[in-house]
């Protein structure tokens, strides 16, 4: 057990990374930290390297450049070529994304894959759309991209208009799925 100063209480929480949950204890010792993961203690130090996101992790006689980015629901930690989404349980209640009041639980939201500009919305509200059919065309950095419908269904609601700037992850449209045979209206994609 690592000796602890009176003013340096251990902090314990659960970290989930790559689908695995780890019990983690952090104890300050000198200028470093002792981080115990699954009973295995490791001396680490995290020094700032550039701006708010880039750090240098000193661990076991090696220095590893890491980037830590805060996102909704946790952290994205980039270590070399690998990116590891990390969430911290108990300490970090992950906000659960519930269907909004306006959207019934049966409906699906189509979100912007990147921040950008809405170029066009080929299918109008109330119209049918096929799985893979284009719901919106988004442009960023001179690249245009079709945003496809994840299911066959009918557009319940369009939440954006052409020419509008949207954030990554912003809801563009809400679709009510149609089960095979439930609705025999011919459904088309962007050509509809």
């Amino acid at each position, binding site marked *: 057990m690592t000796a602890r100063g009176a003013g340096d209480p251990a*902090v314990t929480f659960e*970290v989930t*990374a*790559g689908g695995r949950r*780890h019990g*983690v204890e*952090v104890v*300050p010792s000198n200028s470093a*930290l002792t981080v115990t*993961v699954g009973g295995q203690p490791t001396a*680490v130090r*995290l020094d700032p*390297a*550039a*701006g*708010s*996101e*880039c750090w240098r*992790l000193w661990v076991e006689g090696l220095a*590893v*450049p*890491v*980037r830590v*980015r*805060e996102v*909704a*629901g946790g*952290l*994205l*930690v*980039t*270590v*070399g*070529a*690998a*990116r*590891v989404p*990390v969430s911290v349980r*108990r*300490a*970090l*209640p992950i*906000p659960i994304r519930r269907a909004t009041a306006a959207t019934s639980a049966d409906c699906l939201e189509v979100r912007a*894959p*990147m*921040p*950008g*500009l809405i*170029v066009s919305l080929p299918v109008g509200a109330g119209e049918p759309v096929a799985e893979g059919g284009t719901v919106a*065309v988004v*442009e*960023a*950095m*001179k*690249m*245009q991209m*079709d945003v496809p419908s994840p299911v066959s269904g009918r557009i319940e609601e369009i939440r954006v208009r052409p020419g509008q*700037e949207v954030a*990554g992850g912003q809801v563009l449209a809400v679709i009510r799925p149609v089960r095979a045979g439930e609705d025999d209206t011919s459904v088309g994609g*962007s050509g509809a």
Partner: protein
Amino acid sequence: MPPLRRLLIANRGEIAVRIVRACRDLGVSPVAVYAPIDADSPHVRLADDAFALPGDAPHDGYLNAPLLVDLARRAGASAIHPGYGFLAENPAFAAACEAAGIAFVGPPAEVLARCGDKAAARAAAAEAGVPVLPGTDPVGDDEAARAARAVGFPLLIKAVGGGGGKGIHLVRAPAELPAHLRLARGEAQTAFGDPRVYLERWLERSRHVEVQILADQQGRAVHLGERACSVQRRHQKLIEEAPAPGLDPGVRDALTDAAVRVATALGYRNAGTIEFLVEGDAFYFLEVNARIQVEHPVTEATTGVDLVASQLLIAAGEPLPFRQEDVRASGWAIECRISAEDPHGGFLPSLGRIDGVVEPAGPGIRVDSGLWVGQTVSRHFDPLLAKVIASGPTREAAIARARRALAEFAVSGVDTTIPFHLWALEQPAFVQGAYDVHFAEQWGGGPTLPEAERLAVLAAAAWFHRKRQRPALPTDGASPAWIAAARQEVLR
């Protein structure tokens, strides 16, 4: 160089910085223009004078041809360097410059038009005895299906305005054609102000090799060797190198010879690149990139020739100061493009505000960068932020130095392609020089390594601990509410 005292740079980012430096080396006074969002950028900071453009959208700014000509006149500039992209290959802009008595640093308008007419360029190459791939003139939506059948699948849709991978779509089957045609046209319109596209046959297991050309106004054309550019994602190059690894010396000689013949047949002037697809020992002319290219530094590193300075000297009417037999390439150079893209998220653009940068340096490393702290990476512009060029006596040394430099490079505020490069430079196929245009597909979403996971857990734990102790880090954005909540709960 008495006639060229002042030059306007009609571009932004790293290439504008590059042109400023070439000006300085020749004693030419560089004048910058900038979109409002670029007011604090390095190309503005390093120039002798700078003029604001009326808006961030390209058509207000860096594509605003009449305004740029007018600004050059007001600034007392006798030449305009268009960089790459934007107006670099626009014959009307070159003609407008000439009409205003301003030297356009690039080929004359008629040569740009000839190179831009892809079918004509292909025909000229074929006539010069250089193998070409089947392709079309610019196609309308109505005729596209028939033209595609004639070309054969798989094929590429390419923008006539061309360049930088923008507007390029791979089509494997006739059914995919209409959707891709529409997207490609939209991109071409935005990037080049020209919605025209054409079709070209695609070879599945090919390598992309291109040859650098310099041609003076006296009509002498030389090549400066080839570059390998097969590490591509969405038809955008990610890594380039010179020379091309694994290229048979006979094929190399035939390629470079063919490139000079194509350039001569087209009456080419100034710096340009002749692109080829190579499959085994066979090669096919693709097109002429009638501009300085992003990857020009690898050729500068191996030949010692300053290509941008050469562009200025040629534009000023100077003959090339060397002949083909004087060009000696030695060593190896590799360029990694650092772009604001999320390699773990399908290379989608990553927008945001740069709040910290550490650029690499030291032996064998050149960094051409447009990065600055405070920079807003917006959807308006190409995501290229900087380039790391590593060179050394051998390919092995260049790769080792590139890895070292990438590990030193830190950018905070947006995702970048650095993790992809760290991965690529460790892959056996890359290290052995045995890769083709499909190489980057093996990246998938990036590696998942148990060791990285363990380090990420340690880093996350230390990060939280630090956040608890030092509430205020110097960032612009407010800390998300959930962090505050988490902090409270951790403290209990």
